């Protein structure tokens, strides 16, 4: 955790007064937030509302990672970016929007792609990781890096009119690989570029993801470990599913893990770590 603040300033007390009133947070919870760092992997449809509400709530440090630039087709759901930010790096655009909202949050933009080479070194600097990525190889990469460095992973996803959320590698619960030991065949994977998405669906899921991050960061516990929250926007229905426990045979978090360092996840998944073109050309 971050060191530093041991008491709230008068300005903090004014700014956070409405949430300081909550017995579930209080001064101690607010101080815990200010000492917590969160890495946001992906500043798109999920990462924008997530970063917005984490910053508003007073998280201590926010790492904002995205290799991509803002395009017009992002703006229907990636609400931290404006029309004037087209062509700008999403990580920078998101960071400046977040700073307008709360300049007391330390904001670190990373304009790069998460890779097996940089993931561990980055994730080790944060207390909690939020997976807001848009492709299968990155989801395995983030999972394995969180297992190897012992960080809780708050993971959300959205497509068309549906969303899913789970907290992995948290308090003895399962990791992503416990549930999905084998990646899906690339031809069965649909991404937002192909399948579309209603913008407010990642909006709802990114806010939900922020809620679970805030619970963990404030010192309460998340209720979404070993649980899958499914959202169907068409019939406005949420459903909570009890998941399997951590699997003894899991390649990442099991008793004899075979994943002891990060791999080539594009090769493992047979697809590229982007939502733009779906299949990796196997040369």
């Amino acid at each position, binding site marked *: 955790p971050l060191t530093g603040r041991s008491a709230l300033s008068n300005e903090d007390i004014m700014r956070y007064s409405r949430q300081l009133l909550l017995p579930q947070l209080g001064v101690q919870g607010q101080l815990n937030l200010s000492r917590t760092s969160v890495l946001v992997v992906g500043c798109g449809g999920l990462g924008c509302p997530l970063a917005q509400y984490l910053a508003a709530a007073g998280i201590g440090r926010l790492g904002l990672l995205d290799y991509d630039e803002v395009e017009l087709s992002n703006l229907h759901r990636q609400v931290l970016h404006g029309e004037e930010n087209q062509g700008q790096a999403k990580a920078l655009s998101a960071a400046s929007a977040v700073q307008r909202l709360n300049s007391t949050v330390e904001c670190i933009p990373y304009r790069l792609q998460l890779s097996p080479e940089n993931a561990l070194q980055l994730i080790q600097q944060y207390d909690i990781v939020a997976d807001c990525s848009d492709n299968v190889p990155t989801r395995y990469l983030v999972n394995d890096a969180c297992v190897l460095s012992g960080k809780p992973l708050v993971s959300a996803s959205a*497509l068309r009119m549906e969303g899913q959320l789970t907290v992995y590698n948290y308090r003895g619960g399962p990791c992503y690989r416990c549930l999905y030991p084998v990646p899906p065949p690339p031809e069965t994977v649909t991404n937002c570029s192909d399948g579309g998405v209603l913008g407010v669906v990642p909006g709802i899921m990114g806010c939900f993801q922020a809620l679970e991050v805030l619970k963990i960061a404030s010192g309460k516990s998340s209720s979404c470990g070993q649980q899958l929250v499914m959202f169907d926007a068409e019939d406005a229905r949420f459903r909570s599913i009890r998941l399997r426990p951590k699997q003894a045979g899991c390649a990442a978090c099991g008793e004899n893990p075979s994943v002891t360092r990060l791999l080539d996840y594009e090769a493992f998944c047979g697809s590229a770590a982007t939502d733009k073109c779906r299949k990796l050309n196997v040369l």
Partner: protein
Amino acid sequence: MAASIAIHLEFGGGAELLFDGVKQHRVTLPSQSEPCDLCCLWEIHLTENGVFSHRRPGILVLINDADWELMGELDYQLQDRDNIVFISTLHGG
């Protein structure tokens, strides 16, 4: 002979697109001499149109709002009015 069993089948996360986008299905398993497990649901209703195979990666099977891993997987004995969900994992963000 066990009585026939009515099952509520659901598909989500895109898995419903294999069934013309229909998410909710009612299935009645005929009376059989043996109790019916998930295997026979697969055999009778899902593999006949060739779209589903066992343990397809990226699909979670849920029995009455619990991961089927907690329920005995293919050995789970179906009961009348069970709710079985096949949900594709989403990766978009």
